[in-house]
């Protein structure tokens, strides 16, 4: 039983850094700092108000320390939990705990990456693992390909259904002015793209961009005094399944099947209450797995569920309205940007792609090779 209380904290500031490709010699810390300043402007707090720092990046080994130095802050609380792209959902849970316990009052969660500028190999070098490295998988893609192949085998999921996820993401991205991709995409184009690790082509894989973001959380009481309408944390759930794909207990069931129910239980909500989903789409198979594991469709039905444009604009469920990691931005560990879109949807700030009457959004983060799964449910004041 979690001691975290539904709605005890709220996101008050949220911002992206510059996205896509930044100038040479920009550091990940510069991107975190830029996003932090924008998030502070968003809520009207000052740098000196921040007394909790939560960060993770593959490019700065001790990023919470580096960031405190950059800002010359002496935070009361810091957390460098790094479990891949879901780290930041995990930071939300930990920040909520810290704020509830009085360990800090204003928590900054931030991320930055220059992986496009410096190359993926330089930004997140792979560890040698005797049990996998000799077989030369292209990681993480080959791990997701193994899960996709198994899903196809067990449930009859098709490459066309995987491609539907990329096409839907692209349609949403065309409504997002800061999205990396600007041209339409068809299922046929996805299928005919360069093969990376069968059954995944390059269009089944997330982008490789620079980017970062920051969000600021504080107590529900303090949130009400700030500039923007608070976006409350209604539920959080964290779960770890495995580290390497060889050790994933079941290739077609992720630990989202644990993190999701935890978050829903804390929030007192069910999947049908959710107005919009932000699902970490590292590869086209991942939203399919998460829709199943989070309870939006039965296990094995994910491929059929996403078919026919059902998660695209105008479809039956709004998923990844930013354009996702597949078409908007994917700077390595993308989880923070996954949440920023879910926060903005509840605020009603998404312009052309705004989901009507969006009161409850779900942000789901994935880390490693389907390894760590963290779910956050956000809600407007109407949901309290």
């Amino acid at each position, binding site marked *: 039983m979690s001691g975290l209380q539904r709605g005890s904290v709220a996101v008050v500031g949220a911002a992206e850094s510059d996205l896509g490709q930044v100038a040479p010699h920009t550091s990940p810390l510069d991107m975190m700092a830029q996003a932090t300043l924008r998030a502070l402007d968003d809520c009207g707090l000052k740098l000196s108000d921040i007394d909790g720092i939560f960060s993770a990046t593959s490019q700065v080994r001790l990023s919470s320390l580096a960031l405190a130095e950059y800002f010359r802050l002496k935070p009361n609380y810091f957390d460098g939990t790094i479990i891949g792209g879901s780290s930041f959902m995990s930071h939300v849970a930990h920040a909520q705990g810290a704020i509830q316990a009085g360990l800090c009052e204003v928590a900054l969660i931030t991320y930055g990456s220059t992986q496009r500028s410096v190359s993926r190999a330089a930004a997140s070098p792979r560890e040698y693992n*005797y049990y996998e490295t*000799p077989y*030369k998988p292209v990681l993480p893609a080959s791990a997701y390909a193994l899960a996709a192949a198994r899903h196809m*085998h067990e449930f009859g999921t098709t490459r066309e259904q995987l491609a539907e996820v990329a096409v839907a993401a692209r349609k949403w991205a065309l409504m997002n002015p800061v999205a990396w991709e600007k041209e339409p995409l068809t299922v046929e184009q996805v299928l005919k793209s360069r*093969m*990376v*690790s*069968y059954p995944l082509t390059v269009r089944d894989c997330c982008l490789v961009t620079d980017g970062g973001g920051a969000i600021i959380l504080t107590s529900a009481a303090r949130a009400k005094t700030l500039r923007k309408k608070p976006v409350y944390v209604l539920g959080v759930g964290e779960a770890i399944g495995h580290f390497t794909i060889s050790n994933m207990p079941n290739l077609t069931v992720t630990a989202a099947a644990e993190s999701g129910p935890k978050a829903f239980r804390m929030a007192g909500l069910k999947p049908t209450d959710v107005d919009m989903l932000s699902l970490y789409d590292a590869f086209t198979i991942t939203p399919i797995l998460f829709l199943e594991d989070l309870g939006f469709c039965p296990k094995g039905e994910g491929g059929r569920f996403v078919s026919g444009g059902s998660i695209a604009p105008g479809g039956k469920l709004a998923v990844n309205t930013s354009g996702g990691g597949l078409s908007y931005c994917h700077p390595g560990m993308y989880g923070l940007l996954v949440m920023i879109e879910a926060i903005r949807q509840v605020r009603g700030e998404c312009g052309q792609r705004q989901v009507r009457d969006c009161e409850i959004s779900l942000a789901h983060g994935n880390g490693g090779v389907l390894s760590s799964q963290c779910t956050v449910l956000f809600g407007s004041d109407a949901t309290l």
Partner: protein
Amino acid sequence: MPSLKEQSPLGVYLEHCKKGELAYQVCTDDNKPLFFPRVVAPVTGSANIEWRVSKGLGTVHSTTVVHAAKDQPPHNVALIDVDEGFRLMSRVEDIDPMQVRIGMRVKVRINPGDDKQPPFPVFVPIGGAK
């Protein structure tokens, strides 16, 4: 528990590989096989671990074909469920990588490695390529 100053789990495993064997461990508290080799069994937390040699037969659990570079042919990466009840990453050789199928029966073959790469197990289809 053996001293880590004298031998490591991977060290023992590699000694088996050099003899052409695929080795694995069993926790004798719950009689469950475990892989990768460890000094402490998962779940039980027990150090009562025995080494066994597999018969080397298994089934392809999942498979992918990696297109790593333009100047290299695509290669297979597979997860193999070994009959004794453990799974490992490997590759299936002696067959077009696109013809490797989930459910295919395979048999181990130890790749001897070289100066830089220690020996490692690969698999071949039983009865040869179809």
